[in-house]
């Protein structure tokens, strides 16, 4: 009977074109608005690395001044100082750890037709690539030796590598960066974790970093820290004093073997902090904070209030469209009271009528879903025009596509419940009488 009712549904839709078109359009617009805002919300709040997001941590150690310290207040900057970062890496508190800072260098292409430009990149320690599962197109991360020596090596991003060297494998070639030639040891493949959770504070370009250079190399060459540098006390000029100061500018990540090790890690960090307090370096009696990936994204407000507002608004609009559809369906079904009467007289039970009309609303929902999907694509394209970082997030994936149809059909079914129930209540006798 499903097929029969489905065909009936289609036929009845065609019979009353304008009303149907209005219903489908209203539903489609409501669904499109909700799905497009939900897609963005979903992309921004999705887990970028589900296999290990509960065992990768960002520690925070408060190294601010004792004056003006209010416990529990918001932190100005949640990065680490050079001393803390290097101390903690050396202590090896987990399975792996990495210190990162953002930097930039002028890149002089080997080809004379391209002018020199400033590249923006990261200076991580070697474990970064394994921890964040960065995919390599050519080559591999620099060796432990390179890291220890602070060698002149670099890993390029795919876009920059293709711009400089074309399609060829550039591993082993040298590229002049910041005045010195660096040897290319690897090229990263297209890597777009959304958001770029490894460096949320003072983040780099939305399309990805141009290069990655060893942390020790960047420090040796005194490459400036791009992104946020926050100093709670004055310091002398020069890179050496930056390293010796309590300015925070380094992002530290620690990976443990399992999520159970979190309390152990916390204890370790607390020990370290109290040691440093005894040495007189840390002046505040502040607790050590530890955040896993999702907590870190929450703390750094990756999903802004505006995104949430858009999603709420879209839902409110969908509810309005639903109420509107209920009204339209009521209108549509009420004029078919005589048809219902005849069917009932011919032996259809209330349940049969219910099923028939509900399937009809389902057909409306399906049509609304198709149109809604097209509109959602359009809406996402419009939203993507706002900025490059938005364009990376405003993309439909399979889950959202399925959600569009599910939402549309469920919405139409919910909207159809009242009108369908009303239609079932038609008493056949009255309808047959008034011909």
């Amino acid at each position: 009977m499903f097929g029969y009712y489905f065909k009936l549904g289609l036929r009845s839709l065609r019979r009353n074109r304008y009303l149907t078109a209005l219903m489908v359009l209203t539903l489609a617009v409501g669904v499109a608005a909700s799905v497009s805002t939900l897609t963005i919300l979903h992309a921004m709040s999705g887990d970028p690395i589900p296999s290990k997001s509960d065992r990768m941590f960002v520690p925070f150690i408060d190294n601010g001044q004792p004056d003006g310290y209010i416990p529990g207040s918001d932190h100005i900057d949640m990065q680490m100082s050079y001393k803390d970062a290097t101390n903690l890496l050396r202590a090896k508190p987990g399975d792996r750890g990495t210190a990162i800072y953002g930097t930039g260098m002028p890149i002089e292409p080997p080809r004379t037709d391209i002018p020199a430009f400033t590249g923006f990149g990261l200076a991580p320690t070697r474990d970064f690539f394994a921890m964040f599962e960065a995919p390599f197109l050519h080559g591999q991360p620099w060796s432990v030796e390179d890291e220890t020596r602070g060698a002149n090596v670099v890993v390029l991003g795919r876009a920059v590598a293709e711009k400089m060297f074309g399609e060829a494998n550039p591993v082993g070639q040298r590229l002049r960066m910041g005045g010195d030639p660096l040897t290319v040891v690897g090229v990263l493949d297209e890597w777009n974790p959304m958001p770029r959770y490894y460096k949320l504070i003072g983040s780099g370009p939305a399309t990805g970093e141009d290069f990655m250079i060893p942390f020790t190399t960047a420090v040796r060459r005194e490459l400036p820290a791009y992104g946020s540098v926050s100093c709670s006390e004055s310091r002398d000029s020069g890179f050496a004093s930056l390293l010796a100061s309590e300015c925070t500018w380094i992002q530290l990540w620690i990976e443990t073997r399992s999520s159970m090790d979190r309390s152990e890690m916390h204890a370790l960090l607390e020990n370290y902090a109290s040691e440093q307090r005894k040495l007189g370096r840390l002046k505040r009696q502040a607790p050590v904070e530890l955040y896993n990936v999702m907590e870190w994204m929450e703390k750094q407000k990756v999903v802004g209030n505006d995104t949430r507002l858009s999603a709420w608004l879209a839902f409110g609009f969908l509810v309005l469209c639903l109420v509107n559809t209920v009204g339209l369906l009521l209108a549509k079904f009420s004029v078919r009271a005589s048809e219902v009467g005849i069917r009932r007289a011919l032996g259809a039970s209330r349940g049969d009528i219910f099923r028939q009309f509900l399937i009809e609303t389902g057909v409306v929902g399906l049509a609304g879903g198709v149109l809604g999907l097209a509109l959602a694509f359009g809406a996402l394209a419009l939203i993507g025009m706002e900025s490059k970082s938005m364009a990376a997030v405003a993309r439909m994936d399979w889950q959202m596509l399925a959600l569009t149809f599910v939402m549309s059909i469920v919405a139409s079914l919910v909207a159809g419940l009242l009108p369908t129930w009303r239609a079932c209540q038609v008493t056949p006798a009255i309808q047959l009488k008034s011909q």
Partner: protein
Amino acid sequence: MNMEIRPILSALLRNKTGPILVAMQVALSLAILANALHIVNERREVAARPSGLADEAATFYFSVRNLNQDTPDQKLAGIKRELEVLRAVPGMVSAGQVSQMPLSQSGTTSSVSADPRQERESAYTSVYATDGAMVKTFGLKLVEGRDFLPHEVPEVNQTLENRIPETILITKALAEKLWPGAPAAGRTMYFGVGNEARGVQVVGVVERLQSVHAEVGVAAEYSVVMPEFSYGRPGTTYAMRAEAGQRDRVMQEAERALRKSSATPMILRIKTVEGDRQDRYRADMALSWMLVTVSVLLLLVTCSGIVGMASLWVTQRRKQIGVRRALGARRIDILRYFIVENVLITSGGVFGGVLLGVGLNQLLVSKLEMTRLPLVYLIGGALMFWAIGILAAYGPAWRAASTSPAMATRST
């Protein structure tokens, strides 16, 4: 005038579903619309704040990095040379070295206080550095004191020292914060608090200069300008203002002249204050547009709902209207009946909408850090929906009024 409200009301209550649906739509729309328009207005206001620059459309800047191997002293000579080249471009009003630009979202912030013995700093300010040309290049208005004198601008080798200036310009808003109601020129301001605080003398107050981040709220108006001709770092920034309307041409010529003046290649990043303003407020404008679009759609859907419902009732009650007309009701009576009915339903919706709107606003304030909704939006929205309700019902009501009395006697 007999409004015959009671019969209308009792007729409505007997057949509740339709009216409730319409009232719900009006309520939802009003609640969402009032909040949405409030947010749109707020964002537009924030984005319209002046930066303090006299002619934003004509102001632009170059971030220059010369790929030579000069010593710091050679770099100093190079900067002076480049500034001369820039100033010589026809149509250039003023050019000078700066450390950062307003609305660029990239720069230095520092805490300042009126008295080093304070517990907490008075404010966080954007710290601009200039070679003395900023007031002219930006066209800033001095409301107290004076601009820097040439001898007050030291040449500082940034690789060697981090000099705290001796004199400083501050914005009027900051002066009000530090010394409310009193003149600021001649007073000493301190960077930081406690023993480490360093004092500078305020020589002048500018009316307005926004911070680099142009935050929401008064923090955007806290800026200080310090005199420093800095050299030694690999890159430097030049801010320039062209004559009104000439920016693009002057920009191109300046770039050409600058590149020609250097024997070695240079990396030049060209940005305009207009572009920075667009970047800073892009997200806010996008949200505004989204809210406006959804608001328009909301109105359309609600209108279609009201019109649809009204048409349906007219069709359903043809016989009843026919009877009334046969009994002597005039067209205008029928029209009035339907309009009053519609106003009643819309009023129910508006009442619900006001409550819902306040509730929604409470939710937004508590969960999403939005601001309180001023009553005027709800009142305006209510009036608008009353008007819409009447207009939307007019068409079907007129059709109903045109029903011929003969309907009453037909038995279809």
